[in-house]
């Protein structure tokens, strides 16, 4: 404990130990220490002061907010809406903390945010704070996207309410909302959001934020929905905010000051990697592998020497089932409340998420039955019902895959728009399908007499190698070419994504490219060249080991691409703060 040579403590009291972790002989005033510690623990002193009176039903704060909330309920064609007076908002953020406290939110949870806009000219600089919460949209995309109907738009008040007990924690609403409103709560495994304090409004109290704004900048007003639609048509909401047509937000930002054109959110130039959503990435890639292997086997099988009923054929179906099962099982980890995932059929009418889940569930069942029959039935390949199941599986899987594309397309995130998501998802299917078949051949070879994998690769397998090579090249070139957006003239979401991939996510991106090129281009090419060279078959001889390695690289590359798909996206949001908030 005591380092030699250092200054040690000289203590005057005889017999006292220098500082230590345990008390030695108590000092002369140890009794006082005990007394004072006891006194410190006593909280009764406050009781000598009178408690505030119960002042009846009307809260004492109501005198400040009476005129900030509507007197009457909305009529037909109307709803409640926030009105924010930008001239009065000075950015004190009391609204955020009041909402947090009065609604009893978790430690880091906030339903309201205050952002900052800066701009103007040297002579007339402008600093404008913007307070924002849920906009209780006319077309709430959170609600439309929810697979389990955990959202309701109140028919009278228009308040978009989240039903916490219905939520399964899929967080699709987080992807859907352009304003970053639904907040995922890890502890509870659900999303929660602003409900305009509807319980307070119902009994004549103002929402927490309205009660707490020292400058009376936030009000609740009854608005005509037609007016909201008209206002949104103009494509203006508040500077720096996402375009309003997507969801028709009802909040009305007002102010007398004319704001300059060049107002930008203080965090406009910040780019931040988003959550990787690994279970989703795994699910997408594995289900695409599954669908790809099935479809390639069914439609190209005869061209690549895949004999129906043969061991490789059987293994390819087992592989498809295993991949689908693993992928879908992993995706459950994404859910905050997986036990309630069965509710996912509820949103079929509007939610692509719901459709994907239902289709993939069907896909999995169909594959399970199919593989069961393949194991049990002799000469199953000739059974028409088996064939039907194969076609059904392909159909369900492909449909699920397309719903998957639509899930992402149907968000206000251009990085996920149909051409981009579709291209990636379909090419993953096209790359991993042939690769899956080749893998089935590798696995089948030791068990089959008279056939070995190198021989197969020299013959029909070449076609599959060519497919892998072509599709992987195409996909990697496409993904690399995306980086051109880094030089876009405007600082748009795609440019931010490109910045992320060349900045904070550069390592992931590089690994993705290297894995793709190694597993999908270099190694297949090596095997192909080796096949041409009749004298030395070095690589081909090792191909039973080399190809599985190549497959792993490919799979890893696709997984990394899919992680980037989530991490490099730039979600729209309301203006934020500067610095690294």
């Amino acid at each position, binding site marked *: 404990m005591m380092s030699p040579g250092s200054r040690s403590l000289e203590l005057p009291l005889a017999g006292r130990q220098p500082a230590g972790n345990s008390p030695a002989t108590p000092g002369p005033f140890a009794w006082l220490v005990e007394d004072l510690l006891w006194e410190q623990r006593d909280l009764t002193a406050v009781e000598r002061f009178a408690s505030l009176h119960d002042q009846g039903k009307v809260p004492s704060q109501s005198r400040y907010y009476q005129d900030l909330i509507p007197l009457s309920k909305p009529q037909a064609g109307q709803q409640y809406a926030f009105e924010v007076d930008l001239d*009065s908002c000075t950015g004190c953020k009391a609204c955020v903390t009041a909402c947090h406290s009065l609604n009893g939110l978790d430690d880091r949870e906030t339903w309201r945010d205050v952002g900052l806009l800066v701009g103007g000219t040297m002579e007339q600089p402008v600093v404008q704070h913007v307070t924002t919460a849920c906009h209780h949209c006319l077309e709430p995309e959170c609600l439309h996207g929810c697979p389990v109907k955990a959202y309701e738009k109140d028919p009278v008040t228009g308040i978009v309410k989240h039903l916490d007990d219905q939520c399964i924690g899929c967080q699709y609403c987080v992807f859907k909302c352009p304003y970053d409103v639904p907040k995922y709560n890890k502890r509870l495994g659900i999303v929660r959001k602003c409900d305009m304090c509807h319980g307070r409004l119902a009994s004549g109290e103002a929402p927490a934020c309205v009660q707490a704004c020292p400058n009376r900048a936030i009000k609740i007003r009854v608005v005509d929905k037609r007016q909201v639609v008209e206002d949104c048509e103009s494509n203006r909401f508040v500077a720096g905010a996402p375009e309003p047509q997507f969801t028709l937000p009802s909040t009305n930002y007002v102010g007398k000051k004319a704001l300059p054109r060049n107002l930008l959110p203080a965090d406009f130039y910040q780019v931040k990697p988003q959550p990787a959503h690994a279970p989703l990435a795994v699910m997408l890639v594995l289900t695409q592998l599954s669908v790809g292997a099935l479809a390639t086997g069914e439609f190209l099988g005869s061209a690549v020497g895949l004999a129906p009923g043969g061991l490789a054929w059987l293994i390819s179906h087992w592989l498809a089932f295993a991949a689908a099962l693993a992928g879908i099982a992993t995706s459950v980890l994404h859910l905050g409340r997986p036990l309630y995932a069965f509710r996912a059929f509820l949103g079929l009418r509007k939610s692509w998420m719901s459709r994907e889940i239902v289709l993939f569930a069907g896909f999995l069942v169909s594959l399970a039955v199919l593989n069961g029959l393949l194991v049990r039935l002799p000469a199953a390949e000739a059974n028409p019902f088996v064939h039907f199941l194969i076609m059904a599986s392909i159909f369900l899987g492909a449909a699920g895959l397309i719903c998957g594309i639509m899930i992402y397309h149907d968000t206000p995130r251009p990085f996920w728009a149909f051409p981009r998501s579709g291209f990636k998802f379909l090419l993953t299917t096209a790359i991993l399908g042939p690769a899956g078949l080749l893998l089935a051949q590798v696995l089948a070879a030791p068990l089959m007499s008279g056939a070995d994998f190198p021989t197969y690769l020299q013959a029909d397998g070449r076609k599959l190698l060519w497919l892998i090579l072509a599709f992987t090249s195409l996909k990697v070139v496409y993904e690399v070419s995306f980086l051109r957006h880094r030089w876009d003239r405007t600082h748009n979401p795609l440019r931010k994504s490109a910045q992320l991939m060349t900045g904070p996510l550069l390592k992931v991106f590089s690994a993705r490219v290297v894995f793709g090129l190694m597993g999908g281009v270099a190694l297949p090419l090596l095997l192909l060249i080796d096949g041409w060279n009749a004298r030395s078959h070095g690589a081909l001889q090792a191909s039973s080991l080399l190809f599985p390695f190549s497959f792993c690289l490919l799979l890893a590359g696709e997984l990394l691409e899919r992680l980037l798909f989530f991490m490099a996206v730039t979600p729209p949001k309301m203006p934020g703060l500067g610095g690294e908030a």
Partner: protein
Amino acid sequence: MNSQMEEAPVQESRLLSLIQAKSGPLTQELSLTEGNFGLGKVPTKAQPDFATKMVCGFCSTGCSLTVHMKEGRAVGLTPSSDYPVNLGMACPKGWEALRVLEAPDRASQPLLRRSKTSPLLPCDLDTAMTVMTSRFKAILQEHGDEAVAFLSTGQITSEEMAFLGALTKFGMGLVHGDGNTRQCMATSVAAYKQSFGFDAPPYTYADFELSDVLIFAGSNLAIAHPILWERVLRNPNSPRTIVIDPRKTETAMAATDHVALAPKSDLQLFYSIAQVLVRMGWIDREFIDNHTEGFDDFAAFLADYSPEQTAGFTGIKAETVIELAKTIHQGKRVSFWWTMGVNQGHEATRTAQAIINLALMTGNIGKPGTGANSITGQCNAMGSRLFSNTTNLLGGHDFLNPEHRAKVAAALGIEVERVKARNSLAYHEILDRIREGKIKGLWVIATNTAHSWIDQRALLETFSKLDFLVVQDMYHSTETARLADLVLPAAAWGEKEGTFINSERRIGLVKKVSLAPGQALSDFNLFKLVAEYWGCGHLFRAWKTPEAVFQILKETTRNLPCDITGIRDYQMLDLMNGIQWPYTQKDSQAGPPTIERRLFADRRFYHVDGRARILFEKPRRPGEVPDSEFPYWLLTGRGTAAQWHTQTRTGKSEVLNKLSPQSLYVEINPVNARELGIPPGARVRVLSRRGSVIARAQLSHAIAPGQIFLPMHYAETNRLTFSEFDPYSKQPSYKACAVRVEPLAAS
């Protein structure tokens, strides 16, 4: 009862609710309940059974917070609706005031460093006290009574400050001790004392609502004192609000006028305004003649400060100054307000007095909606001014005045010899003595010098010269506590009783509503312990409780401008929603105090002749100005309303952390950024002659070209600042120094 009646589930079958659950345990998590006590709805999990009001412990606004108690503990709070200060509102810090008490790095036991090279390790209070008193005694014995000093705070209660001041100076026999109020309010104290004859901010918050012209100098009220800005917005007279600040602050943005003067040119600007007022005859001659002293000399002095002459220096056109003077002249009730932009300057006292002069010349004092008004910083800076026993002898007295010494000794019941006729060194002089090796022992209470003091590198070097450093704080993690040889764990606001005095001189009550962690004791009781271990406990037998001390303090104020002998006790403070000083025994016989009271309604100032002094001095350049090597002015100040000073507390609330950038950023004008090749959001290095920091560039026209702005809440900022002090107030000049900005390679 759950109030969300409309959500009550209609008889749904179990199966149905499994598929479509409209309520359940997760919904209950957020259910609201009638809070009673006039609180409206509150979260069900925090429904109070008792509600009591107390004053907030962050800033000097002195808002009242209604603390919701359940089974004897605070479970929540809301701003008090009927308190005359905050009228039902609070800033984010206030809303989160209880949260920051729960931090894991609360000091819960004493920590002792057994040698300079060993780590801080836990020990018990008995050991801590024994070591502390023996070490300090040994130093005093060897090096004399000036060799141990203390640095106090504006964050503890008046009763605690008084205890600390009396214990150290009358009990332990120390000579030197100062407070962190030196960093925020010393200028106002010096200015008021010299001008009015007593340190007396004359206003009441109602004045914000009664003026028709409000002038804010170096005050970002909307961010630093959001609740006072609320009062401005409640002004029904559609007042002109004029903000004088180099930067387009949030307040400047919200004001009707912004005068963006060059940094450190405020004194010249105020003189030029005065010059116009005199030249145009826009002055209150009657008031000047009857109630002030020194005006004629001032008028003559002003000859050199016409707006035309000062324009080159201030950057403000003569027309603007004349317009400004005209606005003051035409205003019926003009109030002048200042904060740190004025106080933290190299000629701050004269600048504050230049503002006071404007109010005096135009008769804008002592009437509703007027005044030369300093807005204080910390929750109890005003208490410190009266009761810390540092610059002033207890109660607002003078150490060098024998009558005062006798009076205070009598009020405390101690021998008059214990009250030494010696003034303390100021903060920076104490640090100088440490550097010189003359002060060897230091006791730091509830302040974070290692973060907040100017020119940080020099400060850290200075602290390393100490033989024994005791830091008493509620967190063991502050930059200063980490340097300590002994850390004493202190209970925080909300865990103890006492009083604070706010900017408008309102004495408010702090109550004990929450448990302190582990062995943490109130500062009051820590002082009591030190007294006993030191061997001077007998002097403080009457200092049993904070309320007992309050009675003693009352007595020390008798017949002073701050006389509070009319306040009966804590109960009265509680019932009356705080009471402004003065409230004398005689006043109390006339009846309860009125809610809002201002000083000088009788036009009598506290100098013996009853006249205010008009004081002035030739402006001079600051010690460091931009040059070719360091071409930019560095301005510092409050970043957001969610951050407080060195963030020892606000940094503990996850919500407050979300409301402010988590790492240092620098505001820089886009024109300069272009010249320097700094893209928006890029990382840059800011260098001064004393150090460098790395920050993210925030491009904004709100900061003028040639200037940059760094918020003060990040520890790095003070690596750059320049040690210079106002000669009268000895307050550091944080607001300007010369720096250079360099882009960093892409991060």
